Structure formats: structure tokens, C-alpha cells
């Protein structure tokens, strides 16, 4: 599967700056879509996506939709469970390191938490997120730049049930902000390797979407309405399904679902 996706990456339609090996790249400036990544525990997949998108200079925040943060424990029936919004990655890291450093190093948890604590303070729960609350006190978070308004243009979930939870939650909230948001699910299996592949795919998707959004912004005035035809005239919102369709061809192993919802 890796080869399939790998080939696809090189054939990426988005002419965005090529990612350097460590994921860092030059900030091209200009318009940027604001992203939000969501998985179950705001630990592995959403944080991988958070980091990659932040390194690609996108404004990004991340959440989990689970009731609690669940991490594997010594056996399958003894997971390590933490509260959202109240536990920092650092404290989880220190707790697990004290419990059994060998086990948690071997299963990659410490490595993951070590990464996460450099991205933001702690796991946040989607359902507790007050959309539109200014996030001005989070300067140290990766991907903070541009996220001050506390809203996102694109929500990327990493699992169907997270997508369901997000949509269900948005329906229940009743969309008081009147702001459209594209909610896209990418099915990523919950392991480190797949999360990494998924992170790459997210950046690819982000690049493709941002490119389209940028094109829309660059068209000014009457030209935007009259010049060209078809795809060139279409707006960003209209082109999102098309971009996802193309992206899906490049990443056939990460099935995607999309909808337009309201904050």
C-alpha cells in the first residue's frame, strides 16, 4: 500500500512547495485555509496531522471526540485513561515513564507523547470546544499563527465514527455562527505508521485545497464572474468535492467522506 500512495504523492497535482525530509518548508505566505484535525483521543492521528500541517505552515488546531483519552496499558483490559482538557501531554508522559519506561518506549507511546508535548499543552475534546472563542492565549501551540479567531475552514477527522461524532455534535449545536465548514473524514488506522502516512496525505489534501482557495482569492472583481468557464470559474466551495475526488485517486487506501456543515 505504501508504494501505491508513495507514487501518488509524486504525481500530486498540487504544485505546492515540496516537503523537505523533516516536514519543514518555507512559508510561501499568502492566503491560508485554517485546519482542524480530529481523532478519538487527540494523541496519535490528529496530532500527527496537527504537526505536519503546522510544519507546512498552516494554521491548525486539533481535538479528540472520545469520552476520555485512552492509551494502551500493560494489557488490553488495562488502558491508561485520562481526562480531556485537564491532563497535559507532559504529565501523561511523566506518568507512563514512571510506570514502565520499557513497555511504553517499546510501544511508541513515550515517543508519541514526547512529540505531542512539543506541539501543545494537552489533549482537547471536540465536544467541549467553543467554536469561535478566540484562541489568543495559545501562542506556544504549533500552528497557532492564524488560528486566533478560533474557527476552522476545514475539519479533517481520522475515523468514520469521529466524523459522525463531529457532524452529530454540529447538528446539536444548531450552527449559531452561520459559518460554513468542510468536514472531511480520512480513514486512518490507529497506529504510528498509518498515522504517519495519514499525516502526509493530510498535507497533500491541505495543499490541494489551499491551492484552489488561493486561486479563488486571486480572482478579483468582474473577472471572477465572467472570465473563463467551468472549473476555472467555480468557487472554492464547489471545487472541494472535485479536489477530494482527485486526492482519493492518489490515496486509494485512505477512504474519504466529505460534507459541508455549519459552525
Amino acid at each position, binding site marked *: 500500500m505504501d508504494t501505491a500512495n508513495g507514487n501518488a504523492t509524486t504525481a500530486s497535482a498540487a504544485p505546492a512547495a515540496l516537503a523537505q525530509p523533516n516536514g519543514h518548508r518555507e512559508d510561501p505566505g499568502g492566503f491560508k485555509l485554517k485546519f482542524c484535525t480530529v481523532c478519538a483521543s487527540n494523541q496519535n492521528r490528529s496530532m500527527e496531522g496537527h504537526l505536519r500541517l503546522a510544519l507546512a505552515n498552516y494554521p491548525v488546531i486539533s481535538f479528540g471526540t*472520545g469520552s476520555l483519552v*485512552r492509551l*494502551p496499558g500493560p494489557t*488490553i483490559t488495562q*488502558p491508561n485513561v485520562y481526562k480531556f482538557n485537564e491532563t497535559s501531554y507532559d504529565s501523561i508522559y511523566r506518568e507512563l515513564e514512571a510506570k514502565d519506561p520499557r513497555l511504553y518506549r*517499546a*510501544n*511508541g*507511546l513515550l515517543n508519541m507523547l514526547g512529540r505531542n508535548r512539543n506541539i501543545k499543552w494537552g489533549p482537547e475534546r471536540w465536544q467541549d470546544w467553543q*467554536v*469561535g*472563542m*478566540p484562541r*489568543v492565549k495559545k501562542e506556544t501551540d504549533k500552528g497557532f499563527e492564524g488560528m*486566533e*479567531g478560533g474557527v476552522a475552514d476545514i475539519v479533517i477527522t481520522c*475515523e468514520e*465514527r469521529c466524523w*459522525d461524532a463531529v*457532524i*452529530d455534535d*454540529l*447538528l446539536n*449545536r*444548531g*450552527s*449559531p*455562527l*452561520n*459559518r*460554513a465548514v468542510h468536514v472531511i473524514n480520512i480513514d486512518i*488506522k*490507529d*497506529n*504510528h*505508521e*498509518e498515522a504517519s502516512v495519514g499525516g502526509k496525505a493530510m498535507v497533500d489534501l491541505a495543499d490541494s485545497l489551499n491551492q484552489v482557495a488561493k486561486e*479563488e482569492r486571486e480572482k*478579483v*472583481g*468582474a473577472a471572477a*464572474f465572467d472570465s473563463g468557464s467551468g472549473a476555472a470559474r467555480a*468557487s*472554492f*466551495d*464547489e471545487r*472541494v*468535492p472535485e479536489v*477530494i*475526488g*482527485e486526492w*482519493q*485517486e492518489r490515496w486509494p487506501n485512505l477512504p*474519504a*467522506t*466529505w*460534507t*459541508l*456543515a*455549519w459552525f
Partner: protein
Amino acid sequence: MASTPAVPIEEQLKQLNAARKLALENSAYYDRIVKGVLPVIGPTSSIELKRWGAEFLAESLATPVLSMRDKESLTLSVLDTLKSLLESEQDDAIVLKASIAAAASAYPVVLRWIIHNSYHTEAWEQISAIKSRILRIWDGAPAPVRLSCIKFAQRVVLAQTTSNGQEVKYGGLDISLSMVPANHPLLDPRLMEAEATGLLDRMLGVLQDNSNDALLVDATLNCLSILIRTRPSTSNRIINCVLNFNPLKLANSPMTPKNKVLMKSMEKTTRMLMINILKRHVDPNNQHSGRVQQYVERLMRSRAEIFDEAGRKRQLADQAAAQYGDLKRQKMQDASAAAPEPAAPAQPAVIPPLAPGPQTLAAVFTLTNNPGLQAFDATSIPANLVAKIVARTLNTLDQSVLDFAVNGIRSRLHTLQAAAVTAAAQYAAHGAAGLPGAINPATAPLGVEEDDDDYEPNLDAAEDTEQILNKLDNAPPETALDEYADPNAALGLGPFTLAPPPLIDADVASKLSSAAASRLFGPLSSLSSEGPSKKPKAGINRLAASSYDRDSWLTVATRLATRSTFGLEEEEQEEQTSAVKSEEGAVSYPLASTFNQSIREMLFTYILEDWRPRIEVAVAWLSEEWYNDQLTKRTGLRNAPLHYETWALRLLDGFMTFITAQDKVLTRFLAEIPELSGELLGRLKTLCGDPNTLGLAMTSLLYLVMMRPPARELALDTVGGIWVEYEEARPLAAKYLSKWRPGWVEQQMHLQAAKAVAGGGGNGAAGIAA
């Protein structure tokens, strides 16, 4: 076009962004900053400034940080600018989209203001103008603008229909027709409701037309939930409309990637709305819930049909891609030559030698040359069918053919083993570097990949499994891997030895033993004890533990306690003494007997917990102990500890403290235990100190004297001892003794008299002398 040409637009935007940040940091600045930027973003400004301004207005009017009061004043102050933005900007979708979004947030706020301040006709005129402007541009507008129009219409419907009061009270969602008084000078509730109904119809038009435009369909569906939930007058209409909507209509058009995305999106969005309705809004008695349920199920079935078809086709394609042509015909052709079948015993089949290099296990066991058969995946046949085929084949197979095939495989394995030995030698010589077949832990397939089907995203545990399995990913290469680094070596089938179990020190062992012992007693409380009346008398033929009741279980427990380490204790004890010699202070039970001792302790506790009814258990246990001691003695094991006496004494001591005059069980206990000793009976003497229990002790002894002749002398000795020690017991003791040891009492009396004479001799002599 720019209003302030002196300052470049980029500089202006930078300043505006700084102002916005200030407002975000402190909501108190919102009012001032919004009012301050209004002139900059007016209709004559450049397009960049207008875009920024419209988006800032949309953000400000929607922000959750401001209270309704603050928002009212803010909203009223921007209406004019909003109106002019909407009217002047004909073309730019971004400005229109954001302005309409701002208007959607403004509408309920203004309506609320008008409800309470009916004099303010100006504000009502402004918002009415904005509304009619938006509704006018709705139809011909580009998609993003239409999105905003849908949302605006939804907010108007929400504000102009009657609420059932179930909505949350924020963001203006609670502003509804219920708040408008019937005699309001500006607002006519009936007209407003009529307008709302019309707008709702217009919104739902996209569904009624069964549009393929997923963007508009999704946008509409995703804002209907709150209407259905909190505006009862709309819910019937909406639900009927959604139920008649077929999101899978696109299935008939070509399945382009985009179409797939659109169709999936509409189907899933519709389904999510319906599930949300089922979960939250529609009470179970509602006429709709059954239909909604059916609709959701039908959608899921259709979706599965449409999208799974592709999956099924791919499977067929995979088989075709095996590139072995028509499998069936090839099999027919080469069957006789390929497989050693009974049809061709005359021409002996040739078993081809293996190609050099690493082999798969399948290759080693493959005897056929037929590529079609080689490619056949036997795992696709169900296991029970395989079993039938194998049984029948083996039944009809010629023995010589089978031997031939088995020998062929055997020789292959020998070859591989030889190759493995040389390879191992090479490996040892060259070290680990550059070994071709070594498994790389970083790229080794994870277990996760294999059990794709088991992946169940609805189970939290599954996620954890995968994360655990995934530890392979980052685990450092384990040393054990080296042994299997060469697949040839793995196939060598050398002698296999289990790794020795980890050493357990005495401490851990004793802990584990007592844990195991306590497990043994776990079931006792739940096991039924058959009443004495029901107990079948199997007599001498009975088996110790033939039924699963409490008695049987206790038998098991007593035998585990007494016999399980028979013969081991001696060795242990020797080891222990030598160990003690070497390291002083190591005091503990010998390893093997820890378990027994734990069980004994627990049996002891179990009996004493309720000793009267459990006296039988005690007797059974002591019988086992005695039997075991006898066996130990007979086998002549020296140093082996004997347990009977110890535990009999402990048990008796245990009872003694609780015994009362009525406890005939003591008599029974003493009569039934297999061996008595002086010490044991001596314990009875303590009972004689108390006049209450004296009788019991004496009766027990009498019983022994009468009914247990071998113990008669012992018992009489004890009675004698009692006679000597306890004055109060003398009458009773004398009675027994006179019967069973005639003359003994008199003899004792004489002795005592003599003693007394001897003791008081001095005095007596003196008295006589005096």
C-alpha cells in the same frame, strides 16, 4: 478605488489585523474597533479591504464572547455598512458570502431589538432591505453565496416560527416568533410565519428537485436539525421532504471520482441527519420514527449495494490477475502428471528439487509443477470441506504414493537443513551485516495489517490492540530475532527446546502458593452442600470426589494439602538445612511444602470458622494426614516431617476455646480421628477446670474407654491424671476408675496419704513426741 491611497493596502490590512487581534484578546474593544473600521471597509474601498471587512463583520457578529446586549448595539451600528456592502458589491463572491453570513447573525438580534423597541423603525427597515436584497440574489448567485443564502434563510425561518423552547439559549438561536407580541406595531406574527413557511419551501427546493449539487444539499441538510427539533411547525414538512429525497440518484451516472465523493457525501449527510433526528428529536410515538428508521436502513442497503459491487469485482479481477489463464482447464490437463494421484501409480511422479535460495514453507510442501495449482489458494476453501477432502483422499490414496511424497518432502527438508547449517556458519563468520534474508523490524508487516477484518472502530479496545501490536514498529531489534534471521535456519527444524522458565525465589513462590491455595477455597462458598438426609450412601465403593459438590471439593483440597508433595519434602528439607548452613537467617517453609502449608492453614481457618458442622471435614482431613504420615514412615524417608500430630493438636486447641457443655461433637471428634496421643488427651484436662465442661470431658473420655479399646489405657491414664490434678473432678473420675481400674483410686489414696505423712512427717513426729 482605495479610499486612502496614501497608505498601501498591505499596510492597511496589517493594521486592521492588529486591530482585530486586539478585539480578540479583549472583547471590550469589539465595539470601538468594529465602529472604527466601518469607514475603511465601505463600498468605495478596494476589494481586499471589503473582503477583510465583510469577514471581520461576520466574525464579530457571530462571536460567542459578547453578551446579547453588546451584540445588539454592535449589530445596529453595522447594519448600514452591511446593507451598502450587499448592494454595492455585485460580483465578489467572498464579500457577498461573508456579508450574508453576517446578516444571518444580525437578523435574529435585530428582530429581538425591534420586539422590545418598536419605535426603532429605521433598524427594521434596514434589516428588511438586507433581507430582500439577499433573497433577490439567492437564485443566480455563485455557489458560496448561495450557501450563505441558505443559512440566512434558515435563520429567518428559525426566528419567525414558534419555538417549543427546547433550543439552547445562545447565539440568538432562541429568538423565535413566540417572543413577538400579537399587537406589535411593526411586526405581524402571521405575516412573519407565512414568510418563514415560504422561505422554508425555498430552502427545501434543493431537496425536492433531488439536486445533484452535494454542496447545496449538504448545506441545507446540515442546518435542518435545529428546525426539526425546536420548531414543531416545520418538522413535518422537513421530514417528509427529506424522506422523499434520494441521495443516491447519482448512482446512475458515470462513477467518476468526483461523483463518488458527491454521492457518498449526500448519502452520509442525509443519514446523519436522520440518525440525529431519531436520537434526539423525534419521540418514539411520533408518526415519523418508523418511516425514518426504514429510510435509514434502506439507504444503508442501497449504499452497500452500490459501493460493494466495485469491491466484488475487484476480487474477481484479482483472481484473473494471477495470470495463470483458465484455472479449471489447466487443472484438468495436468492433473495426472502434476499431483501424485492414484490414477498414475505406474509412472512414478517426479518430485522436483527445490530451487536454490530462500523458500517459502508453501514451496517446500508443493509437489506439483502445475502453475495453476500452485497459484491456488487453499485457504479459500472452508475448513470443514478441506477436512472431508483430506479424509477421503487419504482413504483412497496408495500407500506407496504417500510414502514417496513424504520421503520427497523429507529429503527437501534435509537439504534445507544442511543449507541452513552452512548459512549459519557463514552468518557466524560474517556477522549480522548484509544478511540478505534478515527481517527488518522497521518494515516488518504489523499484525494490524493481517486482521483487517477484525478492525472494529466502534470498540475502544480495538484501538488499543492496534496500538499495542504496533509496538513492533518502534521496538528495538530484539536479540531473539537473530536466531531466526535466516529463513533457511528457521526451516531447518532443529531440535526444539522450550526456554527454561524464569527462576522463582522463595519469596515469590510462597506468595504464588498462597494465592493458588486461596483460589482453591474460592468455590467452596458457592458450591452446594447436600443435606445429610439427601446424601447417598455409597458405602465403601464411593469415590472420593466423584460429584461437584462441597464435600468432593473439600476432599480434593485435603488431598492436595496432604499428598501433593509427598516425597518432596524430605529433599527440600535437606536442601533447606544445607542452605541454612550456608546463609544464616533464611527461615521459611521449604519451597515444595509452601503450597501444602498454605492449604493446611486455609483448611484450618475454614474449619474453625464454623467448627461444629465442619467437624466432619476436620476428621476427614486428619485421616488423610495420618494416612500420609503412615506412608511417609513406611517408605522410610528420613527427615520427612509428620503433620498429623501437629494439626490434630492445633485443631483441638482451636475448638477448646469455644467449647460449651453441649458440644457432643468433641466426643465424636475424639472418637473418630485416627490416632490419639497422651498429649492430645491431655488437652482435655483444661476443660476440667470449669465445672460446666467437666462433664463433657469426662464423658468423652468414658466413651473412648468404652468404645475404643486400643485407646483405653491412654484414656484411663488421662482420667487418672485428672483425678490427681482436679479436686472437683474426683467424684466422677473415681467412679469411672473404680469401674475400669479397680483399686487404682485406693492405691492413689494410699500414695497420697503416704506422701502427706512423709511431707508432714516432721510435724507429726514432733506432735507425737510432744
